[in-house]
C-alpha cells in the first residue's frame, strides 16, 4: 500500500480495488475514492497547469469548489474537459488526462510564460496588439485563443442521452449534512413530502470529513442511519449525486442527477444525467460552508491544500496529502487538521496560527505531540519545483525560518455556501461575527440552516436544521415534533487573515485564472475599483469554480488597497448554475430528430405507398411531390403533376390548413368585426375569401369563410398561421367583445381535407358521391358548399380552388382519410387522376397570382397585396384605422406585381431585388423584390410575384431583377400578377 494511504475504516471499500489511468499511467485505488483521493494515494500531487503562467498545480479542495485539479475525463466523443478531480467518482478503467500542458504536465513548455509574467499582467491585451489592424484576426487573436481555454472539447456528437423529469414536494432539502438531515428527518417524520438533493455520492456532508459524535455514535454512521430511515419513508425521495443548480421564480428549482457518471458508460435505457425541475412549497438550504485559502507567496504550489479538505482526505478516504504536513491557520478548526493527521501517525512539523493567542486546550493537545507551534506567525512563501518542499515561516518577532514539509494545510476561515440564496437577486449580509456574508432577505419559501446560515457548530447545524424542518412541515399542514440530538457544543474561534502583506513571490488570489495580489493592486491603480470592474478587468472569480474559495480574499485586498472595509465592497452576484451543468442535460431529449415533434397528415401512410417525397413545413411533414419510378429530376415530377391537374384531375391532401368552427347567436357580427371584408352578406351554403388584419393594419392571414347553417361558420386559415389566428380569435372573443355569444372550436384535426382539382374533377367526384350529392354548376356552383354522407359519416364538400382549375375540397372525418383517398384514386384511375404535393400546389398558386406566406409576411397591407378592393368601407373591423396611416397608403409603397424574365429560358429567383432599368446599383434605387418564383410548366417559362414601388403605373415596364448572391442579374417585364386564366373562367367550368 502506498505511503499516503492510511490504515483504518473511512468511507472507502478496501475489498473493491479499481484501476485507472492518469496521463496514460496506470494506478489503482478503491471504490469510494474520487479521482483526487486516488491520485493523492498514488502520490500524484502535480495534476495540471494553470491558465496563464502554466504553473504546476495540485489539489486544493475535496469538493465541487475545486479551482485547480481540472482534468479531461474519458476520451473520444465522451471527452469531458475541465472536470474536477475532486468530483469524479472512481470507476474501473477510468481514463483521465491533465490539461493545458505540453508536451506533459511535468515538462510544460508553456511554463516560459512565467518568465514573461511581468508582461502578462491583468488586462495587458487591452494595451497592445492594436497594430497593424489586420494582425489581430491573423496573428494575435489566434495565439491568445490557443493559449486560453483549459481542456479540449470533443468535436463529435455527445453519444449519451439525457432526460428531463418533474418533481413536486412539500419540503425540498438541499444538502444532506447534519443540518439537512436534521431538517429532512423532522419534516419527513411528520409525514410531509420531502425531497433531499445531495451533490455528493455519499450523504453526510462534513460529517464524513470530521471526527464528531452524535448521540454517542460517530457522526458518519449517525448520518448513514438517518439516510436509511429517510429512504424507508414512503413520502421521501432521497437523491444523491444530485446538484441543485438554480433557483427560479415560483419556487421552481433546477437540479441535475448524475445518473451514470460514476459508471464507465450509461446502462441500456438509462440517461447519463437527468435534469429535474422541482417545485417545492418550502425549501431548506443546507448547503454548508466553504473554506477559504489565504493569499501568501507561492500559495499555489502542489501540496498546498485547504485544511478541511485535508481532514476529509484523512478521515473519509484515509489518504494523507503528505508525510510531513504543515498547518497554516487563522482559526481553531484548523488545528483539528493537525490533530487528525497526528492521530493518523502523520508528521506535523509546524502549526502556524496567524493569531497571537489561542485557547489553552489547543496548546495542551498540541504539546502531547512533537509539533512546533508558531503563534502570530505567517507563511511568506513556499519552495519546491513541482511539489512543495519547504515553507518560509515568519514568526511574531520577525524571524524567518524555513520548515521542510511536503504538504501544507491552510485554514483561511469559512464562508457560508450561499450561492443559491442569491439567484433571485437577494444580496447577502455581512456578518462581522464570522467575518463572512450570510444569506439575507430570503423569500418566505426559502430558509438557510447550518453552516449555510453562518451557524458553524455541529450542534447549531442540527438545531437549526430541525427547527427549519418543523416550520416547513407545518406550512404544508403537518405537525412535527421538534427532534433533538446530543453532540458536543464546540466553540470555534477564528479571526481572518486575508493575505500576508510581506509575501515573497507570486501570491495567488484566484488560482484558476492566475490572478495575483499584484493584479488586484494594478486594477486599483488603473481605476477598476468597484468589485464588478475588478472582476471584469482581472477575471477574478470568472473561472469554472466562480471563485468560491477566492472571491472574498480578492475583495479584502481591494478593500485594503482602497481604504475601505471588506463589508463596503459588496458582493459579486452568484448566478445559476451553482456548479457547471452539461448543456446536453438541459436540452434533455430535444436533440436530433427529437428536437421538435412532427405532425403527419391523415393520408401520410398512403402517401408513403405512393412514393411521396416529404418536406417539413413547421411541425408538419407533407408530401412535396410523388415521384414515379424512373423520374430522377424533381422538377419534371412537379411539372407532370401540374400538367395533370391543368389537363385532367389531381388530388392533394390539404388537411394542414386551419379549420375553425364558429357558432353562436352573434357569430356573424363577430366575424364581421374580425374580417376586413363583408361577412354578413354571405348566404348559407356559400363560401367567401376572407382577409384578417392585425390591429396595426397589416394582413394577418387569408382564408375562406363558409356559411354552413344559420349562425354556423367554418373558417379556414393558412397552415402556418392556425395557432396565431386561433389566439387572435379567442382574444377577440374573451377580451375585446366578451358580451358576444360566440363559441370557437379548432376542428383542424377532426377533418381530413382533399383538394380535387382539374377539368375532370367533377367527373371524378360524380363517380364516388353522385347519389349523395348533385354536383352540377347549378346545384353546386363555384364558391358553394354542401354536406353529404360519406362512408356512413358526415362529410362536407366545398367548391373552391386554390390552383385555378375547376376544383373541390372534400372534407371527411380524419379516420376516413386513407379509405377516402384510395377510393378517389381508384375511381379516377381511368381519368388519369394524379396525386400532387405542396410543390405543384405552390407552382399553380403562383401561376394564378394567389398570395401566400412569402407575400403575407407581416409587413404587407391589403393594398400592398392588391386586395384593397375586398376591404369593406362600410363597417368597423380590426385593423381598419391603423391601415389608413399615411405611410401605408403612400403611392411609392411597393405593391404586388407579376414578373416575367424577357428571356423565356432565364431563371427568376425569389429574393432578387428590383431596380428600374439603367439606374446605378444602390440602396436608394432599390424598388422592391421578388417574393415568389417558379418554373411554370403551363407557360413553359419562369414566372414570379414580387413587390414594386408605384406598381400600378408600371405594367409592361422592363425592369431589372438583381440577385448578386446567386450571380443572377436579368431584365424582367412587369405584368399583372395573374399568369394563367386571368378572367378566372376555368374555376367556373
Amino acid at each position, binding site marked *: 500500500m502506498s505511503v499516503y494511504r492510511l490504515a483504518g475504516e473511512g468511507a472507502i471499500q478496501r475489498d473493491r480495488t479499481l484501476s485507472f489511468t492518469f496521463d496514460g499511467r496506470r494506478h489503482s485505488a478503491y471504490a469510494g475514492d474520487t479521482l483526487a483521493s486516488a491520485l493523492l494515494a498514488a502520490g500524484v500531487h502535480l495534476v495540471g497547469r494553470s491558465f496563464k503562467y502554466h504553473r504546476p498545480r495540485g489539489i486544493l479542495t475535496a469538493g465541487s469548489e475545486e479551482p485547480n485539479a481540472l482534468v479531461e475525463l474519458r476520451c473520444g466523443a465522451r471527452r469531458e*474537459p*475541465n472536470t474536477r478531480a475532486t468530483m469524479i467518482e472512481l470507476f474501473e478503467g477510468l481514463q483521465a488526462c491533465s490539461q493545458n500542458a505540453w508536451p506533459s504536465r511535468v515538462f510544460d513548455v508553456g511554463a516560459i510564460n512565467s518568465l514573461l509574467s*511581468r508582461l502578462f499582467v491583468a488586462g495587458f*491585451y487591452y*494595451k*497592445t496588439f492594436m497594430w497593424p*489592424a489586420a494582425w*489581430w*484576426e491573423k496573428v494575435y*487573436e489566434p495565439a491568445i*485563443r*490557443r493559449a*486560453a481555454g*483549459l*481542456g*479540449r*472539447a470533443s*468535436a463529435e*456528437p*455527445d453519444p449519451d442521452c439525457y432526460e*428531463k423529469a418533474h418533481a413536486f414536494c412539500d419540503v425540498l432539502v438541499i444538502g444532506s449534512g447534519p443540518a439537512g438531515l436534521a431538517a429532512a428527518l423532522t419534516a419527513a417524520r411528520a409525514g410531509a413530502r420531502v425531497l433531499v438533493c445531495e451533490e455528493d455520492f455519499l450523504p453526510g456532508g462534513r460529517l464524513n470529513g470530521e471526527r464528531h459524535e452524535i448521540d454517542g455514535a460517530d457522526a458518519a454512521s449517525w448520518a448513514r442511519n438517518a439516510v436509511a430511515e429517510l429512504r424507508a419513508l414512503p413520502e421521501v425521495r432521497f437523491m444523491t449525486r444530485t446538484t441543485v443548480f438554480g433557483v427560479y*421564480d415560483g419556487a421552481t428549482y433546477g437540479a441535475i442527477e448524475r445518473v451514470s457518471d460514476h459508471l464507465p458508460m450509461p446502462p441500456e435505457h438509462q440517461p447519463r444525467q437527468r435534469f429535474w425541475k422541482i417545485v417545492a412549497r418550502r425549501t431548506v438550504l443546507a448547503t454548508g460552508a466553504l473554506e477559504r485559502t489565504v493569499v501568501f507567496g507561492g500559495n499555489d504550489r502542489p501540496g498546498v491544500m485547504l485544511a478541511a479538505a485535508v481532514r476529509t482526505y484523512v478521515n473519509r478516504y484515509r489518504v494523507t496529502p503528505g508525510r510531513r504536513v504543515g498547518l497554516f491557520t487563522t482559526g481553531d478548526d484548523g488545528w483539528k487538521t493537525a490533530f487528525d493527521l497526528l492521530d493518523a501517525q502523520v508528521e506535523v512539523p509546524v502549526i502556524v496560527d496567524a493569531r497571537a493567542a489561542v485557547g489553552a486546550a489547543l496548546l495542551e493537545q498540541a504539546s502531547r505531540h512533537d509539533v512546533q507551534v508558531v503563534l502570530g506567525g505567517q507563511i511568506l512563501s513556499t519552495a519546491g519545483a513541482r511539489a512543495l518542499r519547504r515553507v518560509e515561516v515568519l514568526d511574531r518577532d520577525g524571524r524567518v525560518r524555513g520548515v521542510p514539509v511536503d504538504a501544507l494545510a491552510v485554514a483561511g476561515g469559512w464562508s457560508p455556501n450561499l450561492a443559491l440564496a442569491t*439567484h433571485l*437577486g437577494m444580496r447577502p449580509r455581512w456578518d462581522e461575527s464570522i467575518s463572512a456574508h450570510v444569506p439575507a432577505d430570503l423569500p418566505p419559501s426559502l430558509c438557510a440552516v447550518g453552516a449555510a446560515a453562518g451557524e458553524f457548530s455541529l450542534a447549531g447545524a442540527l438545531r437549526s436544521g430541525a427547527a427549519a424542518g418543523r416550520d416547513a412541515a407545518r406550512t404544508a399542514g403537518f405537525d412535527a415534533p421538534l427532534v433533538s440530538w446530543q453532540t458536543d457544543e464546540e466553540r470555534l474561534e477564528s479571526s481572518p487573515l486575508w493575505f500576508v502583506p510581506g509575501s515573497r513571490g507570486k501570491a495567488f488570489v484566484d488560482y484558476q485564472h492566475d490572478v495575483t495580489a499584484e493584479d488586484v493592486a494594478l486594477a486599483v*491603480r*488603473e*481605476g477598476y475599483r468597484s468589485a464588478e470592474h475588478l472582476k471584469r478587468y482581472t477575471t477574478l472569480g470568472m473561472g*469554472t469554480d*466562480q471563485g468560491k474559495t477566492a472571491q472574498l480574499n480578492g475583495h479584502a485586498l481591494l478593500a485594503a488597497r482602497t481604504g475601505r472595509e471588506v463589508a463596503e465592497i459588496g458582493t459579486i452576484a452568484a448566478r*445559476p*448554475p451553482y456548479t*457547471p*451543468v*452539461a*448543456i*446536453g442535460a*438541459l*436540452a434533455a431529449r*430535444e*436533440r*436530433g*430528430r427529437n*428536437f*421538435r415533434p412532427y405532425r403527419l397528415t391523415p393520408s401520410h401512410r398512403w402517401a408513403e405507398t405512393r412514393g411521396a417525397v416529404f418536406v*417539413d413545413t413547421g411541425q408538419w411533414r407533407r408530401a412535396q411531390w410523388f415521384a414515379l419510378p424512373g423520374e430522377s429530376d424533381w422538377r419534371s415530377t412537379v411539372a407532370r403533376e401540374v400538367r395533370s391537374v391543368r389537363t385532367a384531375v389531381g388530388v392533394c391532401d390539404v388537411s394542414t390548413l386551419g379549420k375553425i368552427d364558429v357558432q353562436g347567436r352573434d357569430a356573424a357580427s363577430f366575424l364581421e368585426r374580425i374580417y376586413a371584408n363583408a361577412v354578413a352578406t354571405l348566404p348559407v351554403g356559400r363560401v367567401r375569401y376572407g382577409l384578417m388584419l*392585425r*390591429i396595426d393594419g397589416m394582413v394577418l392571414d387569408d382564408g375562406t369563410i363558409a356559411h354552413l347553417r344559420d349562425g354556423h361558420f367554418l373558417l379556414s386559415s393558412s397552415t402556418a398561421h392556425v395557432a396565431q389566428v386561433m389566439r387572435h380569435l379567442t382574444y377577440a372573443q374573451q377580451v375585446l367583445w366578451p358580451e358576444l355569444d360566440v363559441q370557437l372550436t379548432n376542428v383542424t384535426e377532426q377533418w381530413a381535407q382533399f383538394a380535387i382539382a382539374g377539368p375532370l374533377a367533377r367527373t371524378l367526384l360524380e363517380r364516388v358521391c353522385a347519389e349523395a350529392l348533385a354536383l352540377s354548376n347549378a346545384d353546386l356552383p363555384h364558391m358553394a358548399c354542401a354536406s353529404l354522407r360519406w362512408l356512413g359519416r358526415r362529410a362536407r364538400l366545398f367548391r373552391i380552388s386554390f390552383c385555378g382549375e375547376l376544383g373541390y375540397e372534400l372534407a371527411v372525418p380524419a379516420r376516413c382519410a386513407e379509405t377516402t383517398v384510395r377510393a378517389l384514386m381508384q375511381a379516377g384511375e381511368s381519368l388519369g387522376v394524379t396525386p400532387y404535393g405542396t410543390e405543384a400546389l405552390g407552382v399553380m398558386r403562383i401561376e394564378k397570382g394567389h398570395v401566400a406566406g*412569402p407575400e403575407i*409576411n*407581416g409587413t404587407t397591407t391589403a393594398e400592398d397585396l392588391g386586395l384593397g378592393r375586398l376591404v369593406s368601407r362600410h363597417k368597423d373591423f380590426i385593423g381598419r384605422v391603423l391601415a389608413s*396611416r399615411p*405611410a401605408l397608403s403612400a403611392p411609392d409603397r411597393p405593391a404586388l406585381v407579376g414578373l416575367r424574365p424577357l428571356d423565356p429560358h432565364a431563371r427568376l429567383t425569389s*429574393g*432578387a431585388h428590383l431596380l428600374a432599368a439603367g439606374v446605378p*446599383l*444602390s*440602396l436608394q434605387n*432599390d424598388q422592391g423584390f421578388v417574393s415568389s418564383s417558379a418554373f411554370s410548366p403551363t407557360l413553359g417559362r419562369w414566372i414570379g410575384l414580387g413587390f414594386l414601388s408605384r406598381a400600378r403605373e408600371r405594367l409592361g415596364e422592363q425592369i431589372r431583377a438583381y*440577385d448578386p448572391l*446567386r450571380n443572377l442579374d436579368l431584365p424582367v417585364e412587369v405584368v399583372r400578377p395573374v399568369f394563367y386564366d386571368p378572367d378566372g373562367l376555368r374555376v367556373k367550368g
Partner: protein
Amino acid sequence: MRYSLFTLLRQGLMAHRGWTPAWRDAAPKSAYRVLLIGGGGHGLATAYYLAKVHGITDVAVLEKGAIGLGNAGRNTTIIRSNYLLPGNLPFYEFSMQLWEGLERDLNYNAMVSQRGVLNLFHSDAQRDAFVRRGNAMRLHGVDAELLDAAAVRRMLPFLEFDNARFPIQGGLLQRRGGTARHDAVVWGYARAASELGVDIVQNCEVTGFLRSGERICGVQTTRGSIGAETIGIAVAGNSSRVAAMAGLRLPIESHVLQAFVSEAVKPLIPCVVTFGAGHFYISQSDKGGLVFGGDIDGYNSYAQRGNLPTVEDVCAGGMAVMPSIGRLRLLRSWGGIMDMSMDGSPIIDRTPLEGLYLNAGWCYGGFKATPASGYCFAHLLARGESHELTRAYRLERFASGHLIDEKGQGPQPNLH
C-alpha cells in the same frame, strides 16, 4: 498615458507601478453644456464623439452605478451589419466601419474580431428571405455570401447535418461581422472621452428632471441637481423609467434577455453561428468560453434574470444544431433588460420636451450599434437635427406608419 507594447514593456520593468486610472472618476459640476444619462456604451460613445467630432467637451456622463454594468456589460458581443431594411442597413454598416477603426481611434484594444457571422437556414422560404437580405446588403456595398449545405459543412463540420429535425440547407455569411470585447468597448470609450475632458460621474442616479416652462434644463440626481442646456437619455432597458420622470410614455417595453457562457475550452467555434430553426446563437470568447443565447423570456421585466423555459429552449437549440457541446458545461447564465421597441428598431430623436433627447429601443441589437449610435446621437445633440443615417429612427414613425419592422411582427415587442 498612451497604450502600446513599448509602454507595457517599460511598465513591466517597473513592476507596473506607473499606470494611472484609465478614466477620471469625476465629481459632478453644477452645470454642463451637455448631460448624458447612462454610462453604458451608447452614453459614453456619445460623449466621446461630442468631444472629438463636435469639440464639445463640457459634457458629463451620469451613471447610476459603475459604468458598463448594464447591457454593455452583459451582451453576447456580436457585431454585424446584415440588415434588410433601408432604414437600418446604412446605419449599421456605418457602425461596422467605425468598429473597423475603433481601436486605433481609441488607443484601446477592444478585441474587435471580424471572424464572420453565419445565419443558417433550413427551408426554401427561409433561404429566399435571407437572400433578399443579403442582396440588400450587396446593393449597399456590404459583404454577404450565400453558402450551400456543403460549404457550411466544410466550414463547420461539427454541426448537425445527418440527424437533424430541420436539416441545414445553407447559410448567409457576413465575413466582416464578428465580435468585440464588450467591457473593453466601455472602458475604451470612457478613457478616450475622459482624456478629452468629459466628466464620467459614477454612482450618480438621475431621479428627476428640472424644468423651466416647457424646457428641460437639468436633472436631479443622488448627487444633487445638475443643470444643462442639452440632455440625452441613453439608458437602454431603463428608458421608460427615466422618460417617465419627464412625464413621457415611450413605444418601448422592457424585457429580459438571458445569455450563457460555458466553461473555457480550447478553440472550437471559429465564427458566430445562428440557428435558423430554433432560438440559438453562439460564438467563442477569446477567453475560451462559448458565449450563447436565444430568445427573450417574453414578459415585461426589470429583473436581470430569467426563467428555466428559456434556458431549456436555448440549450435544446444548441444541441439540435451542435450536438458536440452536450458534454460542455454551462458555467454561468444571466439576464439583461432589453429596451424592446414596437417595431424592433431603435429611436434616436428629440422628445416633445425642449432640450431633452432620446436614444433607445435597441432591443438586443444595440451593442453592434454602439459606435454609430454614439456618433449620430452626438450629431443630434450638437446640431439639434438628426444625422442623415438616423432620419428613420423617429418617435413619430408609429403614428405616421413609417415602421421599420425587420421581422414583420407588428406592435408586439416580445416577438421582435
